[in-house]
């Protein structure tokens, strides 16, 4: 039987979908253009606190996207190549990243969910947690050690 989630949070589904993965959490915003390598999933913004870490297949939580509008193309390409995060949890839904997920769905029939979570919820996530996102925006969190 599946262990009971440590916490269950209600987020707004921005781009609806189901995903599960290990959390990668940052309190810093990030620009996917110049910050995310779509061929590997590595965070390549050398000024970012997660510089050098790999977000492919992870549930990637950060406050908001920023910087160049080319970020959507980077996200689409990473989805096409299978090197995208499993899902994005954002404090503020970002039109640029949301569009990337929608177009990937229209073009390739595959995508990643994006949810918008309030600041209190964001504060309860930590890197290494196991996170599942459901289509209605429910975010279930298990402790990383389980």
């Amino acid at each position: 039987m599946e262990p009971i989630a440590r916490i269950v949070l209600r987020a707004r589904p921005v781009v609806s979908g189901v995903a599960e993965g290990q959390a990668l959490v940052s309190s810093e915003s990030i620009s996917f253009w110049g910050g995310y390598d779509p061929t590997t999933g590595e965070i390549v913004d050398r000024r970012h606190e997660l510089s050098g870490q790999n977000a492919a297949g992870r549930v990637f939580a950060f406050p908001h996207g920023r910087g160049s509008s080319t970020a959507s193309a980077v996200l689409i390409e990473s989805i096409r190549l299978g090197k995208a995060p499993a899902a994005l949890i954002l404090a503020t839904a970002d039109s640029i990243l949301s569009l990337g997920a929608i177009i990937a769905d229209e073009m390739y029939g595959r995508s990643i969910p994006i949810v918008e979570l309030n600041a209190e919820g964001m504060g309860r996530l930590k890197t290494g947690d196991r996170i599942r996102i459901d289509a209605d925006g429910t975010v279930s969190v298990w402790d990383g050690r389980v």
Partner: protein
Amino acid sequence: MGMTLSPSDREMLSGARGEAARLALSIITRLAEALAVDELIDVTQVHIDGCGFLSQAGLDIVERLADFGGRVVVPTTLNMGPMDLRRWADQGVDPEKGAQGGRLAAAYESMGCVPTWTCAPYEGYLTPRFGQAIAWGESNAVAYANAVCGARTNRVADYLDICIALTGRAPRSGLYLDENRRATVQIRLRDLGDLVAAEGFYAALGHHLGAAVGEQVPVIEGLPSYISNTDLKALGAAAASAGGVALYHIVGVTPEAPTLEAALQGRAPERTVEWTADDLKMAWQDLTHAEDGAPLDAVGLGCPHYSFHEFARLIEAIRALPPETRCHERTTFLIATSRQTEALIAGYQDWMPVLKAFGAVVVSDTCVMYEPLSHRAKLDVLMTDSGKCAYYSPGELQVQTAFGTVRDCVLSAVEGRILRKDTPWNR
């Protein structure tokens, strides 16, 4: 909550105006729903940034829309792309990449886009009007259009731009709405003296501004009314890179800030900060992480694309050197600009011969951070006069970057090492 659609929207979604318009409007309405926006507005000009990152995904999308017979319904300009479309073969670009770039360009042009291929469309002939609802991609252009022109656009995501161009419709949200154009952060600049006239100051200010306000709308007090469009371009590009600044106001300078009260729309700011010369000196230093004296592989100018006035400043710096001085053999000296500006300077005085004699290379349609430099085997240290390039190039090109004035870029290129003498703080 339902989307409010016009009769014309319904017609497009039914496919009656072609499959390209149907797919484009379907993407727009899905995005509007994702952002909890229930209405679309008409826009009358588009600038497309989807040419900025050459990927298979990008090519797939644009070619599909073109194959469906898509035609833009409003004047639509194109951003710079990965390569110099006319000279890539001479610049050592991989033939396969060159051919893909040509396909992307052909697809956009077949849909009726204007082949501007520039990240500074505000310097071309389609400069937007005050209050005009437009849809622009390219973060520096968005900041300029909103702040300096007083036009209205959000930071339009890649490929949403072409969808809007094919339909003339955009989600009614963000900076199209009066209330979201209100400044919420008040920034007081104090005791800056003649720093405000120094080259490089505005990129440092923009860098500091972006880091401080993120995506909020700031209003700045304490800048002189004689600030140039070149300075505003540098400020906005750096602020849009380091933060998500899409609109800023400067009291007495930008059109929505004749007074502080006007920029604040009569309300109190959420916070007020004061910056002195020392705060901005830290921002200046933060733009550089290459060591002084390091061997210099390349100088990259024109981020955003160089204007006539920026070329004039460069020519002046080269002319100040002893006759026949050339840049060092290990240093590539690149300037990126638009076709329009290149054509303008090509016939102007002896500028092109001066640049050529110095060893400088002018590229158009593209960015110094793309093919002109990215395919080079040895590229460890870069110098630039651009806050945006200084911010992005370490990630994009895996280089150590130094930020300096044009004069220092020229002197460093001659020595083949980074020399930074000309900071605004030692005047």
